[in-house]
């Protein structure tokens, strides 16, 4: 259902994070990543943070990763970020 809503949102030029609740990742430089619309943490270590999303999972790779803030809507990861993968 989420995938269908995402495709529909893309067809209609509507923001998928609003319509389908797709995760939105905002990277600031190489040391801060903001993940919105998350569905919880799957794993959290110093080198990897895995976040569940409604349409896709997000994996943040890095070194010395910290969770600077987290609530029901968003989470903010800080540290040396090497890459962000979608799962």
């Amino acid at each position, binding site marked *: 259902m989420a995938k269908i809503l995402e495709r529909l949102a893309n067809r209609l030029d509507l923001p998928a994070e609003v319509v389908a609740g797709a995760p939105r990742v905002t990277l600031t430089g190489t040391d801060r990543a903001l993940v919105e619309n998350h569905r919880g*943490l799957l794993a*959290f*270590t110093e080198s990897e943070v895995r976040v569940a999303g409604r349409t896709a999972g997000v994996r943040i790779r890095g070194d010395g990763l910290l969770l600077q*803030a*987290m609530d029901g809507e968003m989470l903010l990861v800080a540290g040396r970020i090497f890459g962000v993968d979608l799962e």
Partner: protein
Amino acid sequence: MGVYDGLNRLAGWVDCRVTGAEPAAFLNGCAGERVPVLGAAAEGEYALRVRLRARDSRRAARLARRTQCTLEILSGGGTPALLRFLRRRGLAAAGLGLILLLLAWSRLFIWEIGVTGNERVDTGRILDALRECGISCGSFWPGITSDNLRSRLLTELPELAWATVNVYGSRAEVIVRERVPKPDIWYEKDPVDVVAAKTGFVTEVRTLCGTARVGPGSAVTEGETLISCHADSLWGGPRLVHATGTVRAETWYVLRAAVPLSKGVKQYTGRESSRWALLIGKQRYNFYLNSSISGGMCDRISKVWHLRLGGVFSLPVALVRETEREYAVAETPRDQNLARRELEELLLARLQAALGPEAEIRDVRCFAAVSDGLLSVKLHARCSEDIGVERPGGEQPLQ
């Protein structure tokens, strides 16, 4: 520290360790129950260090149990923790309040004065003038107005062009700007003579305006007129002008310098004594009776530690340590050749400082002599330079 960090500190926080098979589940639980996580760091695979708001600690403990984790509170801080501490210790609270009151009161007085921006005027003179104007250690700074102080200080020290006082806590920073001396200003059409600045033998005269009074081969003495401001005019007779031109002449210099053939070298004997004193405001309390080294010569080194709190509060308390190191002066012979070279270099530097930028040194000879334990060096130099300088003229009537 950001705004949110500051607010969280004000509201109080706790640092906890969450241990379990899946500590990330605890964070998810917090997010689901709307318990904000202020920070989290992984401590291995099965532990997390989490910072939460102090008021959420009970809910967090329940969440930890629900997610099969154990929560251990490590430390806490912020205003609630401070208030709890103060409630438990009433005396400490009173003491802290008194200290804060004293610190706030001490900030109303000046305990340190710094002077910047002065190059020619001595700092001691400025501090003396400030004292005359009512600013010294212990002055009540809210009563000082910068404008009033500036006008009084500039009256006391006419060498200053501008001054201001900035007060940071208990430290007064006095910034001054010195007056630039007014140069000699001559009106272009005023009559001016070119006169000899030095005694010499004229080799070349170039007159641009005025009448040359000397020619190549003339011997001139200091102050003699070289180019006069009286100029002939084809139609109107003689008139007064601003004489200009260059007069090059050969000049002679004789410079002397002497140095003793033995020099005293300071040798520390190893005797050293330290003594301490406490400065409170303007009062000095010595922690010694008479512990100075008597007899021999000694260096005295003073070190002062001012009592400051975090660079914000400067208190009128300072600890002083005076160290005296005794020494004896041993006479050692000086290398004569080296001393002669040093004196020659010194005299040459003095000669070059006395000459203008376009001057040329034609010949230099140095003579050395030793008498009464002194090495004397005499420098004879023959130079070629422009010896003309401008002086107001026109005192003599036109002919």
